[in-house]
Structure formats: structure tokens, C-alpha cells
């Protein structure tokens, strides 16, 4: 392409985009994407307020009734004698258990890697980076085989412990401490007679609130949404977290699995309600945490 060509293209594009028609095109494109991202969520919320019949015949974007919502609610929580309640409880147990261990393990580790010197520091850091970028499903089957040897399969620990290994959290903590806490501050505390442990608890930890919240956010969201790990580790329905429990509900929905029609069958709006409930905690966290998401995912790129 010659320079003249490029120039001509540019002028033409300019008139396309800054003119009236350009704005219209951009507006239409944006509108299409807004609909694409928003329709499924809006529809899902409305679907929980309809009866199975109403879902199919009524306008998809009009709400149903409170009584239908209550009926769906009853059907969902009546499913297999309240299985859904225990699934949500399991999810909370796993996600919070992993969260606590993650924080206890990764905050001191990230601190030590950022602000202290020790042998293997670099090795540990490189290992952390590499494992952090491996998708967390890649090691699930090997971990299953390993835990199978020690007989932990089926116990809550078989999901909590692997989820508590959270290199991303360590990396975030490392970045935070190496950029936000000056080494001089620690040196001053040491001069004043603090032991290494006191330096950490009295100087570093009080400054760590933002990073604790950030690591907690990522750990919780990831654990709550984890499907493959619990799916593999927990053979019995009693131990399912809600994400895996959804598969049981799906299998009992005649609309998707015709062989399941029967006393325990689940109607579509009930399944929709289950979907909403399965993401509710994460959705609530997400509503307030857009800033966190950006801060976390751009942490790697701030060092130019």
C-alpha cells in the first residue's frame, strides 16, 4: 500500500466515524453488544418469577408473579429433601476454608519474597509465576491420583487444600509489598529491636489490608466457581458444592433430559432459580469489586 492509499483511507474513515453516519454505526454496534451481554442475565432473573408454562408462552421480558416465584423456590429447596441448601452450605465451607488457608499461607510468603532475603527466593518466585499461569484444571487429575493414594478422596479437605494453593495470591502479595512498603521502614523497626516476626506482624500486616482484600476476592470467586476439582474429588451428592449440584438438577429436568420425568423432576424456571442462587454470592462480590478485578489483573504490568 502506498502512502497516498493510506492517506485516502484515513480521510474516508474520518468522515465515516466522526460524521453523523459514523456515530450511528458505532451506536448500533455498541447497542448490539449491550443486548448480547445483558439479555441473558435480565431474562434469567425474570424467568425465576414464572411458571413452567408461563416461561414458554408469556413475553420473555415481562416479569411473572410472586406466587410463581414462591412455587419455584419451594420446588428448588424441596429437591431431594433440601439438597440445594446443603450444596450451598458446602460451597460456603469449601470457598471460605480455602480462603482462610490461602490468606495464612500467601500473605507471609509474598511478604518474605518481597522484603526479605533467603536462599531459593528466586526459585520460589519463578515457580510461583509458572504455576500461576497454568490453568487450575491442568493439575486436577494428577492431584486426584495423589490424594487417592493417601485416601482423602471424598473428604472436604480434598477440595479445600488444593484450592488453598493459590500462587496468584502470593504473586499479588509479592507485588504489593515490593512496591508499597519501603524496606527502610522495616530496617527502622529492626533497629528499634523488633524481631523478624514482630516486623511482619507490627509493621507489614497493618499495611496489608488492601492486599488481603484483593487476594481474598480472587480466592473466593475462584473457589466458589470451581467445577472440575470438586466434580472429580467428591463422588457423593452430599458433598457437592452448588456448582456441581447444578448437574444433578439439570439431569432431573425433563426439558433437557426427557428420561427424567417423574416425582423429582425439575421445571425450567426452578433450574433458572438454581442458576441464580449458584452465583449469588459471587454476583454480590462482583457488584462492588470491579476495581479489584482491574487492580489484580494488571498487577503484573505495572512494572515497566
Amino acid at each position, binding site marked *: 500500500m502506498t502512502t497516498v492509499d493510506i492517506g485516502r483511507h484515513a480521510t474516508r474513515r474520518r468522515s465515516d466515524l466522526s460524521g453523523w453516519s459514523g456515530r450511528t454505526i458505532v451506536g448500533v454496534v455498541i447497542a448490539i453488544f449491550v443486548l448480547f451481554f445483558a439479555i441473558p442475565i435480565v431474562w434469567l432473573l425474570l424467568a425465576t418469577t414464572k411458571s413452567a408454562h408461563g416461561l414458554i408462552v408469556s413475553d420473555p421480558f415481562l416479569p411473572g408473579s410472586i406466587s410463581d416465584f414462591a412455587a419455584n423456590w419451594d420446588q428448588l429447596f424441596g429437591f431431594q429433601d433440601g439438597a440445594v441448601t446443603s450444596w450451598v452450605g458446602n460451597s460456603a465451607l469449601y470457598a471460605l476454608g480455602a480462603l482462610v488457608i490461602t490468606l495464612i499461607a500467601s500473605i507471609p510468603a509474598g511478604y518474605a519474597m518481597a522484603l*526479605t532475603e533467603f536462599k531459593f527466593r528466586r526459585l520460589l518466585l*519463578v515457580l510461583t509465576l509458572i504455576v500461576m*499461569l497454568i490453568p487450575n484444571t491442568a493439575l486436577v487429575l494428577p492431584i486426584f*491420583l495423589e490424594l487417592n493414594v493417601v485416601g482423602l478422596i471424598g473428604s472436604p479437605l480434598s477440595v479445600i487444600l488444593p484450592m488453598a494453593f493459590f500462587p496468584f495470591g502470593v504473586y499479588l502479595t509479592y507485588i504489593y509489598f515490593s512496591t508499597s512498603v519501603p524496606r527502610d521502614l522495616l530496617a527502622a523497626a529492626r533497629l528499634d529491636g523488633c524481631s523478624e516476626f514482630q516486623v511482619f506482624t507490627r509493621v507489614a500486616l497493618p499495611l496489608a489490608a488492601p492486599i488481603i482484600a484483593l487476594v481474598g476476592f480472587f480466592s473466593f470467586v475462584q473457589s466458589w466457581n470451581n467445577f472440575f476439582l470438586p466434580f472429580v474429588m467428591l463422588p457423593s451428592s452430599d458433598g457437592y458444592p452448588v456448582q456441581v449440584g447444578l*448437574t444433578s438438577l439439570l439431569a432431573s429436568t425433563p426439558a433437557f433430559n426427557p428420561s427424567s420425568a417423574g416425582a423429582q423432576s425439575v421445571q425450567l424456571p426452578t433450574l433458572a432459580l438454581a442458576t441464580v442462587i449458584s452465583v449469588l454470592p459471587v*454476583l454480590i462480590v462482583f457488584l462492588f469489586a470491579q476495581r479489584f*478485578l482491574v487492580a489484580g489483573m494488571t498487577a503484573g504490568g505495572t512494572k515497566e
Partner: protein
Amino acid sequence: MSYGFIALYTVLAVAFGILPAIYALFLAFTTGDGGFAGIDNFTKVIGDFRFLPAVEHVALYLLFWLVALVVLVAFLALIVHAISVRWLSRSLRFIFYLPGALAGASSVLLWLFVLDPTASPVSGLLHLFGFSSFVQVIVPTHLPPVFAIIAFWTGAGGWIVIMYGALNNISHDVIEAARIDGATTVQIALRIQLPLLRKWISYMGIMSLAAGTQLFVEPQLLSQASNAIVPNDYSLNQLAYQYAFQQNDFNGAAAISLLLLVIALALSAVFVTRGGLFERG
């Protein structure tokens, strides 16, 4: 004392990072009763009639997804960034990002509804394309784009927000200077903003590529919901799962896991050493 700080993390890293990888390595090169197997497990799984189709499915899905992700995320981020009305730009980012809360099984379930013409909010659109039943929508040849749409719906918003942040970091002086020199909005986007976003786009591409090879929950749920019209060995991870739990062949499962792990490790190692994002490491 430093060792005290890193002790628990190191134990977890050994137990759930290093040991499983070594154990998988051991299993992949041994037979069921512990004898050395050479590369037999690998030739067995690669020769399996289900292996190549699974590779093909995952590769096609990745192709659709990555192209859509790279092109549309960059495009939407540039547009959202160009909108000068504050509340509008902020609301758009929020709408794009919110579906990220529905990960895994929940988003697949939601899309089952959307793709079922009897209940779908966009049933008109589905009928327009000639689909009148769920089974018609999810014939196997449609699945790579369908999974790509689900993954895009869930994951794109987070990346748009991140690219937007990166665009905000570009110095105003640079943009202003270009504008004074007569550059149009489009020229600024193509010649200044996109090149400066390249690092982030490659980060997104590699992370998504590594994650995409692990495809599992989408075909697994769809296989359940379709009465096995979608086979339960559609993706590589599903095939590994079948080896482990249907055939009780942990060695074969380990061989597949190892192949996937090597791909993921290679991608992340390339990125850590050459990506420039982790320079201080």
C-alpha cells in the same frame, strides 16, 4: 525466619503443584502394575479413535474463541474509551463485565436456556436461523462456535475493563500531539493505542489459550443435557476423565493430563521469560 513465612505456602506448592506433576509423569511412563512402559501410554491414547477428534474439537473452539476475543475486546475497549460521556462509558463497562460472575456451570446452564428455542429470550432469532428445537441448535458441528460464544460472554468483559485501564495509562500528551498533527480518531487507535495495547493483548491471548485447552464443563453439561447427542469424550480433558473413571486406566489418563500440562507449562514459560510483563521477577 524467612523460612517460617514461606513454610505453609511451600508445603502447599509441593503437595499440590510439584508432587502431582511428578506423580503424573511417573504414571504416564509406567504400566498398571508399576512396570516401565516407555511411551506405550502415549501411543495408546494418541492412537485412540477418540483422541484426534477431541484435539480437533478443542482446536476449532480455540480458533473461534481467540479470534473473537482479540478482535472484539480490542475494538470494544477502544470504543468504550473513546466515549467521553462518563456515566455512559462506566455503565457500558459494568454491563460487559458483570457476566464474568457467572462462571463455569452456571453460565453453561444459562446458555442452555438461551439456546433452547422453546424457552429462549431470543427464540425469534433462533427460528430465523431455522432452529426449532434444542437438538438442532447443538448438533456437534455447531459446538465450537457455541462454546466460543459462551466463553466470550463470560470472559470478555473483564478483559475489556483491563484494556480500558491500559488505554487510560497512555499519556494524554502523546494522543494530543498526534491530534495536533492531524491524526483522526481511527488513526490514533490503529497507530498509537493498538501498538501500546499489544502486551496486554498477548497476555490475554496466552492466558486464554492455556485455559481453553482445558475445556471440560461446557461439553460435560451439554452432553448431559442433550441425552448424549454431544459425546462425553468431546474434549481432551473429558477423554482423560473417561480413561480414569470409566476405564480405570490411570496411566492413560495421566498421559493425556501430561500432554495438556506440557502445553500449559510451555505457554506460561514462554510468557514468563519473554512476555516482559514480569520483568522484575
